[in-house]
């Protein structure tokens, strides 16, 4: 068996080789799974829904039902209204959903479908006893990445359901594309601060279910639509991530706005933002904001977690110091990880993302004071570019989703799996990345991966570190 071929000389490619990104409807599907009682419908070919289901099931190890309007040749020529109508009818009949979120695809966008218009038409033609809430989001896969689809969906849900109202004693929390375990932890933190928080989206249960006594066609959990309605009444929004902005109207030249920015502008909800709280620096900033928002001091529980994390930093600092890391994934994930690795003395040599908002370099500069100048930031990157440069830079560790495993294998270096997708291990949905507790988990895992590597490559199998 020969190795997977790799181009040794440096050349640039027009093509994408082993994409380090996914398409927009996938992000939409993840976000829609975080709305209570919602079934996603992908308006396009059957394959889009099935591929995305398969991709998500392999990570979350959960049933992921996503319907398709299943375009045919006629649909492509004459438009998708009939198919969408049948799809809605069958979804309503099978699932009795509270809401149906329709995400478009490259196909339906290219033939110029206006789904909102179609929905009006369908509602007037089809007489359902009671309609679930229907809304659509524009997610052409030729624009941006899965993250654009994710944030666009959060934004559309808000725009569709949020009402003007007097101020309530609640906040909104936009966690971004993090793991179900992360969302559970964020909810716990809010609750410990006495904050009534609407987390949008909340797929902490729907994509990480306990075992069932009977089959649930729609998994339980998710942000209740009633809560989304009152997001405009919140006194503040906390947005995690620096790359949550969506192009309004789905146009590439449209004005960009993040869900929390929009709420601030339209509903006068004060916006607080933080990068993903990974590492002591980012977590301190995050918890500081929660203290401001709640008027409460840091609960002792988190004081302790912070203390234990620092204690672990002391115990493990030597094993990680000066190690070179390659980090890749969604821009927010990469930024959060780089900030954390920077503070523990790991030198990130490559920080790569398949996305290309044009802001990653600047943000990394801001949040990585130690190594900012030596981190090679790569946007619009693919795995082969990362693979080729990694061979030159000789990193000690690779940190990212499971798709980069082959690079670690080629280089014979350890890999720490974080983020999405993790298709070759159990428990991707349960990886905790955020907060002092999540950082603790990452720190131990990274330090132990380096220690394990040294131990298993040592001529003697020593018993102490």
């Amino acid at each position, binding site marked *: *068996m*020969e*190795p*997977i*071929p790799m*181009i040794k000389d440096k050349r640039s*490619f*027009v*093509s*994408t*080789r*082993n*994409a380090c*990104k*996914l*398409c927009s409807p*996938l992000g939409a599907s993840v976000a829609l799974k975080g709305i209570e009682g919602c079934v996603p419908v992908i308006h*396009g*070919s*059957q*394959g*889009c829904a*099935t*591929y*995305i*289901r*398969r991709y998500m*099931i*392999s990570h979350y*190890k*959960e*049933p*992921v*039902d996503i*319907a*398709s309007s*299943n*375009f*045919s*040749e006629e649909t492509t020529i004459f438009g998708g209204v009939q*198919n969408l109508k*049948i*799809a*809605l009818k*069958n979804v309503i*009949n*099978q699932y009795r959903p509270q809401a149906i979120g329709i995400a478009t695809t*490259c*196909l339906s966008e*290219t033939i110029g479908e206006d789904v909102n218009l179609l929905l009006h038409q369908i509602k007037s033609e089809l007489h359902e006893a009671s309609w679930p809430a229907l809304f659509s989001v524009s997610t*052409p*896969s*030729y*624009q941006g*990445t899965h993250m654009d689809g994710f944030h666009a969906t959060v934004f559309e849900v808000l725009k569709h359901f949020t009402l003007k109202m007097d101020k309530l004693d609640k906040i909104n929390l936009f966690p971004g594309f993090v793991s179900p375990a992360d969302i559970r932890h964020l909810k716990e933190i809010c609750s410990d601060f006495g904050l009534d928080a609407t987390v949008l989206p909340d797929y902490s249960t729907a994509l990480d279910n306990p*075992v069932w006594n*009977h*089959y649930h066609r729609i998994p339980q959990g998710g942000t209740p639509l009633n809560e989304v309605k009152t997001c405009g009444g919140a006194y503040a929004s906390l947005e995690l991530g620096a790359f949550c902005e969506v192009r309004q109207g789905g146009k*590439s030249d449209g004005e960009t706005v993040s869900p929390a920015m929009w709420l601030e502008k339209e509903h006068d909800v004060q916006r607080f933002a933080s990068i993903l709280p990974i590492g002591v620096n980012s977590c301190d900033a995050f918890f500081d904001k929660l203290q401001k928002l709640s008027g409460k001091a840091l609960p002792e529980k988190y004081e302790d977690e912070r203390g234990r994390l620092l204690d672990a930093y002391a115990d493990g600092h030597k094993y990680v110091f000066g190690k070179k890391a390659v980090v890749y994934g969604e821009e927010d994930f990469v930024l959060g990880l780089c900030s954390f690795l920077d503070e523990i003395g790991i030198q990130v040599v490559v920080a790569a993302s398949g996305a290309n908002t044009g802001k990653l370099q600047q943000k990394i500069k801001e949040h990585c004071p130690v190594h900012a100048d030596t981190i090679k930031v790569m946007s619009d990157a693919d795995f*082969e570019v990362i693979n080729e440069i990694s061979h030159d830079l000789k990193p000690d560790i690779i940190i990212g989703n499971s798709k980069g495993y082959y690079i670690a294998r080629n280089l014979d270096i350890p890999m720490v799996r974080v983020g999405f997708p993790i298709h070759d291990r159990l428990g991707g949905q349960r990886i905790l990345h955020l907060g002092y507790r999540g950082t603790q988990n990452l720190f131990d895992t990274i330090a132990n991966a380096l220690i394990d590597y040294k131990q298993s490559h040592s001529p003697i199998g020593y018993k102490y570190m």
Partner: protein
Amino acid sequence: MERLIKERTKQIHTIGTTAHELDCEKKSLAGSVSQRACVFCGSRVVLYPIADALHLIHGPIGCAAYTWDIRGALSSGPQLHRLSFSTDLREKDVVFGGEPKLYKALTELIEAYQPKAAFVYSTCIVGVIGDDVEAICRQVSKEQNIQVLPVMAEGFKGTKKDGYKAACDALSLLVGTDNTYEAPPFSINILGDFNLAGELWMLKDYYSKIGVNIITCLTGDGRVDEIRKAHKASLNVVQCSGSMMHLAREMKDKYGIPFKKVSYFGIEDMADALYEVASFFKSDELMDKARQLVGDELSELLPALAPFKLKLQGKKAAIYVGGAFKAISLVKALRLIGMETAVVGSQTGNRDDYMLLKKLCDEGTVIVDDSNPNELSEFVKEKGVNLFIGGVKERPIAYKLGIGFCDHNHERKEALAGFEGMLNFAHEVCASVTSPVWKFFK
């Protein structure tokens, strides 16, 4: 039974109680949450194992991202097929046309990776934006002096099965392009094995032991230069009939090569495959060797299966796989280890397949075509099965209901074909069905 889609009633048949014949080979119903993918998927999974070819997917990034290294199809040599190449069309390409990008991508990739041939897959929007993929393929083929084969696989142009045809159409352009080769006697092609978990290597070993020469396998551990010579075979032996029948028929029409449908799953079908090939060549020597081989294998295998049968006797299974032909073999293989099939279905079965299943299965068995998670979960609950055989998308249905599962899809890591595969199969089924963890689920 809870709410199911009325329009799908004809695609569900309970043996002994349903009056109508099972309807099949239909486009999936919108909103049904079919387990099928699309035309592109069908073509991609069939061609993927050709290891020394360049596979370039022309379209936005999703189609390439979701099919990167998708199958456990092993190659004994080159690994080029394990790289996922895409033109990654962006908004401006969609507006102004994707041809220039396709031309550049194809040229740069051929120059960099020096493949033996290139497959270019058209995805949904390519036709809609008016790219002439065939023309670009011709041009680059001429300039680079290698075969560049368009795979017309726009996702919406039919079902996954139409994708199989698109793949066969592309393959038929490759078959017959090397006439310098003279095949030894008793030469066959294997069609429709994909060398998942090295299964082809086991089959090759059986065939070589009985004296049969394999020119090429389409497409497991596939090589472009071997496929060019495929028309020199005396016989095409077709497994996974759904995906490769088009090519088998075409090679019969074009080169007069007869074909036989076989299956390599389970003892009976595996043995029959060898006997069929031996009897085709009307050679006593081949037949004797085949009998000898089957005898040898069974003398080891049957005693090894006995303990599994003891543990699994009377347990019930549900099967939902891509092709119905495989389902037929699985029903037989399950029987061999004492299990009965209570639910059986496929994404792409045809009338003949389902008639066979109806004959083969017991009364009360549910047969279903192009099913969805709601139906499958209802059937397995109703029948109280202990095992579900399927792929990635069926796995969580089984596990959520506390039912054992055997992965028989293209991602599997255990070889399940052949005699050795039968033992692996029994082992995997037994490990899942009799696991102590299920006691917490009751």
